[in-house]
């Protein structure tokens, strides 16, 4: 237990990171307790459409007569789910490929490094859009998939170069002479020394996944019947929320995306300081 607290301490000690942790915590609680804190079901379309904010509908209603505030709170679930799932998936792919490329010598490294470079260079958003457009079914899994395919390479590159420097350390050589297998050395000896890099990579990947998912859904490449912040913006744009003066419907989902993204970046400041002591404030 003390060791868990020890790991978490830097996140609390750093003022910026603490703010980030609190904000993410609030959004997660909001998602969990959505049924308790929303007055209506997000899919209840029995209200008058396109109402501007009022006491009954704090943020107005949609073109289909759903309550925007309820959709916003429920939407947190979907956005958190896609953001974290895609963040975790691309971190894992990047981690495995980066570790193997960094540790394995010769041809394996060459091939994997080449693969990393190709995916680094191919622009992400256009590739995501093209992949999603060719796909026959649209849904959250597809979005998670395309974000992972386009997003793993950054982490892989950073981790690969870190492994190449760790590989020649004495303790790794000792493990090798002791007869440990390559997998054991990679995952038991090398990986624990890169936890902060992995964490930073995950947070970065989650932020870009949340933004990318919102962008894809806004373009109509998600499942428009799913309730998320990105699809809310899609419907707001496509039913002329701007022309009707429904600023709240348009403003709120994007604002929460920005807040969630900022909170994750703030947490990342603490991770950066762990990985790179030079960024720590003096004294």
């Amino acid at each position: 237990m003390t060791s868990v607290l020890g790991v978490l301490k830097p996140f609390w000690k750093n003022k910026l990171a603490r703010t980030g942790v609190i904000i993410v915590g609030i959004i997660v609680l909001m998602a969990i307790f959505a049924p308790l804190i929303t007055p209506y079901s997000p899919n209840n379309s029995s209200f008058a459409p396109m109402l501007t904010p009022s006491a009954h509908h704090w943020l107005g209603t949609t073109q289909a007569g759903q309550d925007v505030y309820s959709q916003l709170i429920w939407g947190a679930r979907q956005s958190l789910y896609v953001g974290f799932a895609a963040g975790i998936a691309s971190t894992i792919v990047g981690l495995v490929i980066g570790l193997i490329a960094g540790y394995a010598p010769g041809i394996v490294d060459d091939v994997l490094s080449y693969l990393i470079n190709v995916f680094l260079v191919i622009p992400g958003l256009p590739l995501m859009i093209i992949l999603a457009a060719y796909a026959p079914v649209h849904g959250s899994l597809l979005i998670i998939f395309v974000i992972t395919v386009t997003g793993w390479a950054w982490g892989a590159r950073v981790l690969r170069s870190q492994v190449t420097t760790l590989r020649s350390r004495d303790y790794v050589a000792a493990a090798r002479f002791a007869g440990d297998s390559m997998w054991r050395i990679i995952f038991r000896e090398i990986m624990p020394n890169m936890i902060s890099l992995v964490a930073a990579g995950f947070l970065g990947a989650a932020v870009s996944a949340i933004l990318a998912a919102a962008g894809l859904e806004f373009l109509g490449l998600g499942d428009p019947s799913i309730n998320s912040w990105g699809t809310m913006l899609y419907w707001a744009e496509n039913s002329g929320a701007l022309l009707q003066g429904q600023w709240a419907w348009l403003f709120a989902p994007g604002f929460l995306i920005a807040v969630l993204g900022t909170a994750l970046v703030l947490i990342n400041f603490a991770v950066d300081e762990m990985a790179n002591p030079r960024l720590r404030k003096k004294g």
Partner: protein
Amino acid sequence: MRYLVRRGIMLLLTLWSAITLNFLLPRLMPGNPAEVMLAKFKGKGNMSPQAIHAIKVMLGLNNESLWQQYLQYWHEIFHWNFGVSYTYFPFSVTHEIAQALPWTLVLIGVTTVMSFVIGTGLGIAAAWKRGSLLDSSVTSIFTFTSSFPYFWFALICIFLLGFETTVFPNSGGFAATMNPGFNMAFIGSAVYHSILPAFTILVSSLGGWQLQMRNNMIAALNEDYVVLARAKGLPERTLAILYAARNAILPNMTSFAMSLGFVVSGAILVELVFSYPGMGNLLYSAVSNEDFPLMQGIFLMIVVCVVLANFAADVINVFLDPRVRRGGGEA
């Protein structure tokens, strides 16, 4: 020199794999999107046999082996022939790209350069005056703006400045009453229409440059040679600009060269929101109309530009950074 040769080989390999990926994607996808496409084309009527042939080659419908299709695909690419657009029939894909490209190059090109220069400058200032009011305010504001969904900020700007107060036009690249031409009135209108998109792109992209430069600069200010220079009593300004910033900017130069490559893809979402007649909007209309020839052509164009820009970044680095020259390139 050996380094450049290696990077050159890498360039060709990357180009090859990106173009091959572009070839394979519509063929590997389930549900055979290409068949649907061809049926739609035939519905358009009055197509020449050559045009149908070109579409078949690009989408892989001429019942030949994958290998033969692949050779033909390369043949068409070397002849700069990407087929006919479905959405803008009977115009060719090349024609549509040529129409959209200048708009994107000017708007996104100018904003990318501005964003890099201003962001890097602010990053240097923030790191130099670390912990000051300037540093903390600039850094925290940019942390927030860089998490903005681009398109959302664009929508808000349109709402405030295009609808509530009609300071700026809310869509298009030029006034609808005008014909595109090289005259002052048209250029004026185009500039006027580009201010709001440019502003939204600047606001949401500045942060990335500023934060990256600030981190690099803080690392550089701690290097031994900077400590030595300070001990020698060099003025702080010389130290910050000529010593630390000069080295801290190197990693940013690479990202900058790459982002110049990304210019071609446009700011897809911003262009969509503003109905700006650029590449991003073209890609969107290709996607929403399932116009596969146009999608393929645009994607190919984007990838080639980014790969070339990336190579240019490597070359620039050789001239700027002697460590790269001597190290032989630990990529």
